[in-house]
């Protein structure tokens, strides 16, 4: 029966090619636009570390002076160096790391191995647990140790890409690398590490390519390597000679902690409150304890990581799809009512109302099917266009299998939905009236 209806549908659609083309194109554009924007939204709002996003927490406190205090206010945006180093020494979580973004110059080896022009790369100054905590995959060597953090040993972890670029091989563990005039020993090489979004530090590019070199925070401080990101200071107006110094009243360090399970968050929060109270007793904190502990998803929401324009684009695309659907409903209705005579004859010859209804729905479903295939092509083109946009997530915009299936379902469901009303009106044709007029 279905095959017969399908055959009838094709015949009917062929009879008025222009109208059919119009409906198919409208659905294709609506679906294509929605899928393009939805895919981008899906990629940008992905969970960057699903296996433990509920156990990783971004920590902030409020060590600012009492002046200007407003109850209920947010804690500082990031952490001070002093609080980060103290919490890190405490080691109260399963893993913890302090970090900041930075950049460094890579120079050729003095011995003349691999002559190349010095170049500058994005780097991260952090502590030993970073790699274990964020599940970073090593292809050679491994992380440095907490002892090396403490002694500010000149060690680095680099990406495969950087190893290839400088040495032409990834067999570089143990070899020296010149970083900003200082020789450092390579202890590990990692595969490409590009969490999307770049959740652990959103102050620079949220979807960028990530860092290529990692070195101990202590080393970066000792050598005064360049740091970047957001820094807020609240000194009482005395000039802060070095805002990166240990006691400087400035928040600029990201501090992450991994707990053994999500339900330990309350206990950890209590620990932070105690810490704040102790600091207040010692006279360092002047405000009541103000502790924020956000897991990865909460942190991404709080930081509003998905750009507003991307959300807006999705809304626009769905509004567009809606107009396309209304348009299709109108055209299908026109088409079905135009065939009132034919339907009247089929009804008079014994076809049930139900049979006509199904037949007409198959016809609208066929329009949806073709529209969906075309829409898929358009979504592919749309993502191709996104990849050539000047945005930092451009190279991530690819269709995945789930979105592919969803596109198809969207096209068929929406065109069948669009076909419901016209099919109902079509099958309600009174056979007698139609036969009379002939």
């Amino acid at each position, binding site marked *: 029966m279905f095959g017969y209806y399908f055959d009838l549908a094709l015949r009917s659609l062929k009879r008025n090619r222009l109208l059919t083309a119009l409906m198919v194109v409208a659905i294709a554009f609506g679906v294509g*636009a929605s899928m393009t924007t939805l895919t981008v939204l899906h990629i940008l709002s992905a969970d960057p570390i699903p296996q433990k996003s509920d156990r990783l927490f971004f920590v902030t406190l409020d060590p600012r002076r009492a002046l200007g205090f407003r109850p209920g206010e947010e804690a500082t945006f990031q952490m001070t160096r002093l609080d980060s180093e103290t919490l890190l020494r405490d080691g109260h979580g399963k893993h913890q790391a302090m970090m900041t973004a930075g950049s460094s110059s890579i120079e050729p080896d003095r011995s003349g191995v691999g002559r190349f022009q010095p170049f500058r790369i994005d780097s991260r100054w952090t502590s030993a647990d970073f790699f274990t905590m964020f599940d970073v995959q090593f292809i050679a060597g491994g992380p440095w140790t907490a002892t090396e953090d403490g002694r500010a040993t000149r060690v680095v972890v680099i990406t495969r890409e950087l190893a290839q670029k400088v040495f032409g091989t990834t067999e570089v563990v143990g070899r020296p690398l010149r970083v900003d*005039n200082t020789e450092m020993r390579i202890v590990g090489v990692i595969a490409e590490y590009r969490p999307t979004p770049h959740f652990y530090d959103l102050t620079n590019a949220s979807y960028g390519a990530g860092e290529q070199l990692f070195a101990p925070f202590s080393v970066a401080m000792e050598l005064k390597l360049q740091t970047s990101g957001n820094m807020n200071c609240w000194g009482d107006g005395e000039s802060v000679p070095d805002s990166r110094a240990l006691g400087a009243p400035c928040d600029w360090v990201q501090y992450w902690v991994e707990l053994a399970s999500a339900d330990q968050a309350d206990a950890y929060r209590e620990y932070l409150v105690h810490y704040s109270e102790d600091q207040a007793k010692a006279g360092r904190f002047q405000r009541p304890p103000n502790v924020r502990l956000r897991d990865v998803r909460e942190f991404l929401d709080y930081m509003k990581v998905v750009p507003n324009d991307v959300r807006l684009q999705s809304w626009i695309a769905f509004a567009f799809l809606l*107009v396309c659907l209304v348009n299709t409903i109108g055209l299908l209705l026109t088409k079905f009512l135009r065939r009132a005579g034919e339907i009247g004859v089929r009804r008079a010859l014994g076809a049930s109302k139900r049979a006509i209804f199904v037949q007409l729905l198959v016809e609208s479903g066929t329009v949806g099917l073709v529209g969906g295939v075309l829409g898929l092509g358009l979504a592919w083109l749309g993502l191709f266009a996104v990849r050539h946009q000047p945005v930092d997530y451009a190279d991530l915009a690819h269709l995945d299998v789930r979105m592919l299936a969803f596109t198809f379902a969207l096209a068929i469901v929406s065109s069948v939905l669009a076909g419901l009303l016209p099919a109902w009106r079509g099958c309600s044709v009174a056979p007698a009236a139609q036969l009379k007029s002939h």
Partner: protein
Amino acid sequence: MLQILSTLRRHRTASILIVLEIALTCAIVCNAIFLIRERLARMDQSSGVAEDELIQVRLTGIGKQDNASAITEQDLAALRALPGVKKATSINMIPFGNSSWNSSITKVLDATDGPNCGMYMGKNLIDTMGIRLIAGRDFLPEEYVAADDDKHDPKQVIVTKALADYFYPEGALGKPLYGAAGREPQIIVGIIDHIARPNDGFGGPEVKDYAILLPATMPFSFGGRYVLRVDPAQTAAILGAVDSTLTKVDPNRLILDHMTFGQIRRDHFKGDRAMAWLLLGVSIALLVITALGVVGLASFWVQQRTRQIGVRRALGATRGDILRYFQLENFILATLGIVVGMGMAFGLNELLMREYAIPRLPGTFLPIGAALLWLLGQIAVLGPALRASLIPPAVATRTV
């Protein structure tokens, strides 16, 4: 007229659908045009500097820099010696750039409600960048202190007109401001017309015009950029010579990039430009689809009423009467769609205002949207209506 209304009532479902489609299109297109206008206005905002004549060079030292101030002076002297370079200075940030220095500025010491202001530092910024001084004076040579000197703070400040009006509407020259550096106030010695801030959204639209200049010299290792005022005709040659000039002074550095101010502006607003194009594309696609919907429906009605039209023609209706009938019918449908669409447009705008901090849709968009859709409807219906008017009266005598 009454006849048309009764026909439309008989084709209620189809009429409602076409009205709905016109309404949705009207609501979306009105908002889209409004958003495009907002983006264009943003892209068009003034920087306050001589854009056509400026070049920015970003550089960084390798390792610790112990002699940065002296090298900066040598760099600038070498750059000024290039043909076509009129002026050069070292600066901490640039309008529409991506790095910013900000501070909360107040009228009273230790007040906490000061607005967030952009802080420009560098020598002779007004001359070098072509900023318009509208009152008072520029800094005197002896007033400059080194930006990395933690013993001495600047004692003077130059503010934008917007900031002067915020703090001292009665006249700002000679008045103190706190919060830019140290605990001592800076005295306002000059007022400039305007200079845009690097992150124009930083701190919200109300503070986007709040910026100050401080008499502080920037070693290159601290500010990370030079800005050159050049003869526009020689821009390409200067861009080509910049890197080698600086490397000659001291090779132990990296020149990160060099670009004209035009490139900085294009880069900064690339997202807005892309969004404006997208909105324009969607608007056009919507209008085309709606027009095709109107064509489809009108064609169907003409075909369905062929006999009726023949009868009317036989009874004395002219071709013009038939043509006008369909045009009027479309006008009524479009008007209904526009009325509903306007309501939806404001509803949609309300939603956008809540979610994305977009301003209210001004009333001037009503006539624009209405005219657009009336015009669209009339163009779309013209073909089918002309076909209807060509139906001969003899059709009335035939059975369909």
